[in-house]
C-alpha cells in the first residue's frame, strides 16, 4: 500500500438504504451512492448490516461480516467490476457470495490509475489489489489476536471466518472489524501462494448481471436528476466547417425549448492527449424539457456552415498515403543491411494492405450529466478517463480541483471513444451557460459523424528470399492519418537479419484516436496475411513458418529491443495448433491461422470457414491465449469471444468514408455492423497455464482475427484480400 493509503481517514459509519434505486449512501459524495446492484440487494435483503468499518479505501466490513469491495476502475464492458474485486476478495479471504461490489468514486489518491484503456486495469492493478486484500486480512487477524489474547501465528482464516483451533474458537470478520479499522494499515503483507487461490481462476458471474438483464438504470444514459433539463448539440456536418448562421428564433419558439445558442468550441482543453483529437469548430446547443422535444427542435435547425479549412475526401487520403509510402522515409528501426539484402535477393515479395476509417459505434451514444455553477461542478456519466477529464474541467471552468466532481457510471461501450470526452466538456459548458443541471445526449447521427475515428491506414510489406528459399530481408513501411500503424520492435523484428521498419504520418482535419487495440487493429491483420502468403510462396506450412521464426528469436535474436517473448508467442501458436487439429484433412473446411502479441497478452487463432449456400460462413474459431494467471475465466472467455466477433465484423464490413470533410455514413442504415447471422457458429478458448502475472483481455483478441479471417477466406475463395472491408472485395470476386 502506498503511504497515501496509509494516511487515509477511515471511519466506522452507518449505512442507510435510499428510497430510490435501491442503492446505498455510504458517506462519500453523491457520486458513489447511485449504483443499484441487484447482487447487493439480494445480500442486503437477507442479512442487512447497519454498522460498517472501513479497513482501507477498498474494503468495508459490516458488523455481521458482509463485505463491501470498491471496484476502482471505470467499467466499459471489460468486466473489471467483477475481476478487480475478485483479486481483493481472494487475499482478504472472505466468501464471494457475501461480497457487495460498488463502483468506487474518483479518488486517485486511494485508487491510483482509475482509467479504462490499453487493457491495463488488471495488469497494473494486480499488486495493489492483492495488497489491499491481504493487509486488511492481517488487520482482522491482529484484532482477533488482541481480542482473544492468542498469538497471531495460531490464527487462520477461511471464507471470512477467523479460527483459533487450540481454544476451539471461531468468529466472522465482522466481530473484529471495528477494532481492525483502528489499526495501522501494514505495508508489504505476505500474499497467498497462487496454488492456494480459491476465487481467482474460478468463473464468477458479472456482478451487475442481474441489474443488466432486469433493465435497472445503471448506465450513464439512465442517470438523471429532478429538475435537470435535456440538452443536445448539432455539430458541423463536416470537419473543417464552422457555423455561419442558423434559425435561432424559430428553434427557440418550439414547444418545450428553453434555450438554443451557438457554442464556440474554444473551450475544448488544449495540450492534453485526450484533447488532441477535438477538431470540430462550433456547435449549436439546444436545451429543453424532454428528449423528444429537443430532438424535434434539433431536426428543425436550418444552419449555414462554411469551410474554415478545406473539406477532405477519402480518395485524396489514399493518394496522399500512397505518396508518403512512395516518396518519404522515416526509419524507426534498421537491422543489418536491408538495401543489399533486397538487391541481391533471388526473389522479392511485396504486398500492400489498406483499411479505412472506422467509427466506434458504442451502443450507447455519448451522454453526460452536468450541474455547473460559479462555485462548483458536479458531473456524472460514462468516461474512460475520469481523472484527466476532471482536471481539465477544473481548468476550463476556472474552478479549484476540489470543486469539480466527476462520477463514474457503467458505460454502454467504450472501445476508446470514451477516452476523449469532448461531450463532457460540452455538457459542462451548456450547464454553466444556462445555469441549470442538464443531461446531454448525442443522437446516433451526432455520435457517428462527430467521432474520433480509427485512422485510415496503408502499409507495404516486402520480403527478400535468397536462392536457398530463406527469408533474409523484411521491410514494413506504414502510413496513417495522425500517425502510422507500424510497431517497429514487434515481431517479425528480431527474427530476420536484414530488417527495416518505417512509419509515416498524414496530418488531417479529421479527428482520429484510439479505437479498440490502436494500430494493432489494422497492422496485425496485414502482417498475418503477409506472413501467410509468404509461407505459401516459400512452400511452408504457415504455423511451421512462424514457429521457425520464433525459434530464431529464441536462439539468435537480432537486436535488443524486441518487445515480445518468442517463447510465449510460440506457446500460444503450439497450443492452438494442437487443439484445432491443424494439419488434419478436413473436407469442406477452409482454415486460416494467425498469432499476435499486443497489450501484454499473446493470442493465436485458427478460423474455420464453411460454404453455406455458396456464401462463406465462419464455423468455428479456435483461440489460444496467454494472459498469465486468468482472474475470472468466465469473464475472460467473454472478452476473448467479443474481441473475435468485433474484429470479424469490422474487418468484413467496417468503413466510413469522407466527402468534403463529411462522413458518408450517419446511422445504421448506411453503416453495417456485424449481426447474429454473421457471427461465428462457435468459439472455443484455451489458456496457457504458466503462472505469469495477469495481463488484460479487452483488446488482444481483436487484431489477429482479421488475419486469420483473411487467410481462411483465401483458402475458401482462392483470392487473397488486401483491403478492408473484406465483404466488398469478396463481392468483387463474384
Amino acid at each position, binding site marked *: 500500500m502506498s503511504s497515501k493509503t496509509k494516511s487515509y481517514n477511515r471511519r466506522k459509519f452507518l449505512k442507510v438504504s435510499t428510497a430510490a434505486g435501491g442503492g446505498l449512501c455510504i458517506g462519500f459524495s453523491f457520486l458513489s451512492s447511485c449504483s443499484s446492484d441487484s447482487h447487493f440487494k439480494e445480500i442486503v435483503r437477507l442479512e442487512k448490516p447497519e454498522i460498517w468499518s472501513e479497513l482501507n479505501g477498498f474494503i468495508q466490513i459490516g458488523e455481521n461480516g458482509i463485505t463491501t469491495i470498491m471496484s476502482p476502475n471505470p467499467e466499459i464492458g471489460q468486466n473489471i467490476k467483477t475481476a478487480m474485486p475478485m483479486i481483493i476478495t481472494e487475499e482478504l479471504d472472505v466468501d464471494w457470495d457475501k461480497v457487495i461490489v460498488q463502483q468506487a468514486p474518483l479518488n486517485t489518491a486511494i485508487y491510483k490509475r482509475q482509467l479504462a484503456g490499453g487493457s491495463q486495469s488488471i495488469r497494473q492493478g494486480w499488486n495493489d489489489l492483492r495488497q489491499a486484500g491481504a493487509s486488511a486480512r492481517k488487520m482482522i487477524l491482529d484484532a482477533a489476536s488482541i481480542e482473544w489474547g492468542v498469538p497471531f501465528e495460531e490464527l487462520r482464516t477461511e471464507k471470512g471466518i477467523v479460527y483459533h483451533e487450540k481454544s476451539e474458537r471461531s468468529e466472522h470478520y465482522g466481530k473484529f472489524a471495528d477494532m481492525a479499522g483502528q489499526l495501522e494499515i501494514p505495508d508489504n503483507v505476505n500474499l497467498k501462494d497462487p496454488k492456494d487461490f480459491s476465487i481467482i481462476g474460478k468463473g464468477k458471474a458479472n456482478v451487475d448481471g442481474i441489474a443488466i438483464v432486469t*433493465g435497472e*438504470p445503471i448506465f450513464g444514459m439512465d442517470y438523471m436528476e429532478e429538475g435537470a433539463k435535456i440538452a443536445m448539440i448539432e455539430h458541423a456536418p463536416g470537419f473543417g466547417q464552422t457555423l455561419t448562421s442558423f434559425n435561432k428564433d424559430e428553434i427557440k419558439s418550439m414547444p418545450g425549448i428553453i434555450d438554443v445558442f451557438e457554442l464556440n468550441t474554444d473551450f475544448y482543453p488544449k495540450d492534453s492527449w485526450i484533447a488532441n483529437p477535438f477538431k470540430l469548430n462550433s456547435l449549436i446547443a439546444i436545451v429543453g424539457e424532454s428528449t423528444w422535444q429537443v430532438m424535434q427542435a434539433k431536426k428543425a435547425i436550418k444552419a449555414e456552415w462554411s469551410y474554415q479549412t478545406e473539406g477532405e475526401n477519402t480518395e485524396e487520403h489514399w493518394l496522399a498515403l500512397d505518396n508518403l509510402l512512395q516518396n518519404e522515409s522515416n526509419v524507426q528501426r534498421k537491422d543489418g543491411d536491408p538495401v543489399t539484402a533486397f538487391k541481391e535477393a533471388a526473389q522479392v515479395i511485396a504486398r500492400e494492405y489498406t483499411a479505412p476509417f472506422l467509427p466506434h459505434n458504442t451502443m450507447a451514444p455519448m451522454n453526460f450529466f452536468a450541474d455547473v455553477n460559479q462555485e462548483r461542478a458536479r458531473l456524472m456519466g460514462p468516461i474512460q478517463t475520469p481523472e484527466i477529464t476532471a482536471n481539465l474541467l477544473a481548468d476550463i471552468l476556472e474552478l479549484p480541483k476540489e470543486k469539480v466532481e466527476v462520477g463514474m457510471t*457503467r458505460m454502454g461501450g467504450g472501445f476508446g471513444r470514451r477516452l476523449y470526452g469532448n461531450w463532457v466538456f460540452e455538457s459542462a459548458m451548456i450547464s454553466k451557460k444556462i445555469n441549470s443541471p442538464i443531461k446531454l445526449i448525442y443522437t446516433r447521427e451526432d455520435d457517428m459523424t462527430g467521432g474520433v475515428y480509427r485512422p485510415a491506414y496503408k502499409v507495404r510489406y516486402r520480403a527478400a528470399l535468397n536462392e536457398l528459399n530463406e527469408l533474409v530481408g523484411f521491410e514494413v513501411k506504414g502510413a496513417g492519418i495522425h500517425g502510422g500503424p507500424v510497431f517497429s520492435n514487434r515481431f517479425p523484428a528480431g527474427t530476420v537479419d536484414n530488417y527495416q521498419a518505417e512509419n509515416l504520418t498524414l496530418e488531417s482535419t479529421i479527428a482520429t484516436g484510439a479505437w479498440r487495440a490502436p494500430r494493432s487493429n489494422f497492422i496485425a491483420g496485414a502482417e498475418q496475411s503477409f506472413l501467410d502468403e509468404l509461407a505459401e510462396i516459400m512452400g511452408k506450412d504457415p504455423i511451421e513458418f512462424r514457429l521457425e521464426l520464433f525459434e530464431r528469436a529464441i536462439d539468435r535474436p537480432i537486436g535488443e529491443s524486441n518487445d515480445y517473448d518468442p517463447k510465449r508467442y510460440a506457446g500460444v501458436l503450439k497450443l492452438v495448433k494442437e487443439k484445432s487439429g491443424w494439419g488434419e484433412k478436413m473436407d469442406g473446411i477452409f482454415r486460416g491461422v494467425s498469432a499476435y502479441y499486443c497489450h501484454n497478452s499473446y493470442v493465436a487463432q485458427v478460423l474455420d470457414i464453411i460454404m453455406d449456400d455458396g456464401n462463406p460462413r465462419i464455423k468455428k474459431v479456435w483461440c489460444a491465449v496467454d494472459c498469465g494467471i486468468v482472474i475470472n475465466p468466465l469473464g475472460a472467455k*467473454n472478452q476473448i469471444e467479443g474481441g473475435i*466477433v468485433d474484429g470479424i465484423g469490422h474487418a468484413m464490413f467496417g468503413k466510413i468514408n469522407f466527402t468534403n470533410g463529411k462522413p458518408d455514413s450517419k446511422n445504421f442504415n448506411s453503416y453495417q455492423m456485424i449481426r*447474429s447471422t454473421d457471427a461465428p457458429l462457435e468459439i472455443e478458448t484455451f489458456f496457457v497455464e504458466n503462472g505469469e502475472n495477469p495481463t488484460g483481455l479487452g483488446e488482444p483478441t481483436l487484431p489477429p482475427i482479421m488475419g486469420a479471417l483473411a487467410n481462411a477466406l483465401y483458402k475458401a475463395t482462392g483470392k487473397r484480400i488486401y483491403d478492408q472491408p473484406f465483404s466488398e472485395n469478396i463481392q468483387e470476386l463474384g
Partner: protein
Amino acid sequence: MASYSLKINGKTRKIDVDENTPLLWVLRDELDLKGTKYGCGIALCGACTVHLNGKAIRSCSVPVKNVDGEITTIEGLGEGGLHPVQQAWIEHDVAQCGYCQPGQIMSASALLKNNPNPTDKEIEQGMQGNICRCGTYTRIKEAVKTASTKL
C-alpha cells in the same frame, strides 16, 4: 399535447405528451422506465425493443398515438422474478457492457413465444435486428437455446 392511458407491465399509466412522441421516450422520460434503451432512433439496432401485445416492436419508431394494446418492457418481463430468458442470460454470463441486452432479451423472449423450439438458424435470424458491438452473439444464441428448454 394529448392524454394517453397506457397499459404497461400490467399497470395503467396516464401521460400527457405530444402525440408523435415515440413510445421509447414516453417510457424513459415520462415513466422513468429506463431499461428500454436508445441506440439509433430508426429501428435498426434493437436496443429499444419492447413487446406490444406479446410481439417485439422497436419503441423508438412507434409514436405513442399508435400504441394500441398491452406493453411489456424489460422491467415487467419477469413479473416480479426473472423470466427464463433473463435466467439464461445470467447462466451464460452473456453481458459485457450490457447496454443492448434488455433489447436482446425482449427480442429473444418474443421469438420464443412465437417459436418455442427454434433451430440455430431461426435464432440467428430472429435475433438479427439487435446489434451488440461487444460481440456477445455466440453467447446470446446459447442462452436462447437454454431458455427454450425451460419455457
